[in-house]
């Protein structure tokens, strides 16, 4: 179904259509993929314009990829604060709502409140961590970019968003580094 015109316009304002073309090189081993990555860097392709796609994590930096910044560590703290607040509200409000004085003790009983609040804090921290992992991983992604199923069979993909004038050079770099196949989105 075609997108309504005003939504199309809104999308174009928020995400201006790029001139860049996607090129995916498939490599059988990490060394060839890393060589291609280094050659792209030498050819002046910014490291934000290419990504390595693999079926398992490689030690950080081993493919020459850019360093990724993230804010995941903030999420558990926010979640913990919210969870703690919910815990305090549930435990305090339920006791105040039914203020049964037992043995002359205070209505708000702190030790049991601490237990439920602790669980609330941890639950909040974990829920927000998971949300953080998903968002910081840039997921969910409703449309896969240029991709190949062989990547999950052990091949390494090197996906480049290249300017049209760089297209030929990028394909050549990949082929000379030993790509078994080079695909483009054109």
């Amino acid at each position: 179904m075609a997108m309504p015109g005003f939504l199309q316009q809104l999308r174009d304002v928020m995400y201006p259509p790029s001139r860049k073309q996607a090129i995916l090189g498939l490599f059988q081993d990490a060394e060839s993929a890393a060589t291609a990555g280094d050659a792209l860097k030498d050819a002046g392709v910014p490291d934000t314009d290419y990504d390595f796609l693999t079926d398992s994590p490689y030690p950080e930096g081993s493919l020459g990829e850019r360093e990724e910044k993230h804010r995941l560590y903030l999420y558990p703290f926010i979640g913990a604060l919210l969870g703690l607040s919910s815990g305090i509200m549930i435990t305090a409000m339920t006791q105040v709502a039914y203020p049964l004085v037992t043995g002359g003790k205070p209505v708000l009983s702190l030790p049991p409140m601490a237990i439920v609040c602790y669980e609330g804090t941890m639950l909040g921290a974990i829920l927000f961590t998971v949300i953080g992992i998903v968002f910081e991983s840039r997921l969910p992604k409703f449309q896969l970019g240029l991709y190949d199923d062989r990547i999950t069979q052990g091949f390494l993909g090197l996906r480049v968003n290249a300017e049209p004038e760089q297209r030929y050079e990028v394909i050549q770099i990949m082929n000379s580094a030993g790509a078994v196949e080079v695909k483009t989105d054109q």
Partner: protein
Amino acid sequence: MQEGKVLPAAQINRDLLRSILETPRWFWPVVSLLGLIVLAASITVGIMINTGLGITGLNYKVVWGFFITNFVFWIGISHAGVMLSAILRLAKAEWRRPATRAAEVLTIFSLMTAMIMPIIHTGRPWRILYWAFPYDFARGIWPNIRTPLVWDPSAILTYLTSSTLFVIIALVPDFAVLRDRTTGWPKLVYTLLAMGWEGNPRQWKLQIIAGVLLSALILPVFVSVHSIVSWDFGMAVAIKSWHSTVFAPYFVVGAVHSGVSAVVFAMILLRWAYGWQDYIRHEHIDALGRLLIVVATGWFYFLVMEIIFGIYGLEGDELAVRALQFLPGDYGVAYNVWMIIFVGITYFLPVILWLPKAWRRNLWIMSAACISVNVGMWLERYLLFVPGQANKQFQTFTWNDYLPQWPEALIVGATFAFVSMLMLLFSRVFPLVPLYDIKEGDILRTEMQVGRRTLTATFRED
């Protein structure tokens, strides 16, 4: 260590996805049989709800019997997941890789089973809502947060939610592998579950951090859950032998003991059922065996402390319960004989079997030892809870012993079928050994040349 060989990614996919992409001939008959047992137990639960708890052996004196014993047992089993996955992940133990997923999934299914037990036990399951959830706006009656019976659901639900999310997050890269290997509607489902995962460095970095961060967050929850379960008993002043300060660590260590043993047995079964000899290797079972010796000895220490703490106060009622537990007498049920059997099969027999390296590498012996531990740990909970209630106390005019009846035995037995069935069904749709974790292990594995010898080694980036 390092007995395994580096395998190509395509073979790892083929081997570990075999349980999903092919159906072994035994699969549906076994699942159907387990399903029938669960069905029989469900009908029994229906009968019990209809006729009342009178058809069980529970009575005015012994109100917590088989169901609560089984509840604590399954909570204990659930502790294996975090113990193995989180601690070993934080410690960067390489041998954790094939064990983590099965352990985490066992955690989820054990917790689900455990939560069913107190619900059944109430006899009026629908009333549990009043007890656990703050929802009764109309009458202004709220859960009493001063009781451990409210702390318990809060801790267990936190643990269940956390463990489930932990498993799902770690499954995302494997969903992508399944997305690329399937067709038709399964592909559509796995595509949705994979959420567009493509395996770029950012996603992998976050995935690795997620493993460590979630492990660190779930570990304290894991400790709190069984501590709080122990307070269901420890906070009860009226029942002697329950009101003990050592219960929390005692329960936690006991849970790890039974849980890790259950995981070892499950891994041996999976290795046999799906032919995963290259992934679940003797070195892994051996390492878990060594870990179990330490855990078992820690548990034994707390067992002895629990008994000494009970006796040391020299309170008459407490001593009477201890006499019921340990001394021969005319009590109807020979708790002392069961006590000897329990200590023997939970500590001495398995530890003797785990001591020689050759026995730790023998899968039959390891299976026997792990089953022995779990039978023993079930008995432990029974012998901890029932004698205290059965003991005749001062100014108690009605007292009874407890003899479990067939509905309880059937329901408790069926919980084992239920967990096994869920594990098998899970293995039919999701990989029980994490593919990317195994592949990462192979990437980190290298060979070193020392003189004329070639050694296998593992390197890490930090």
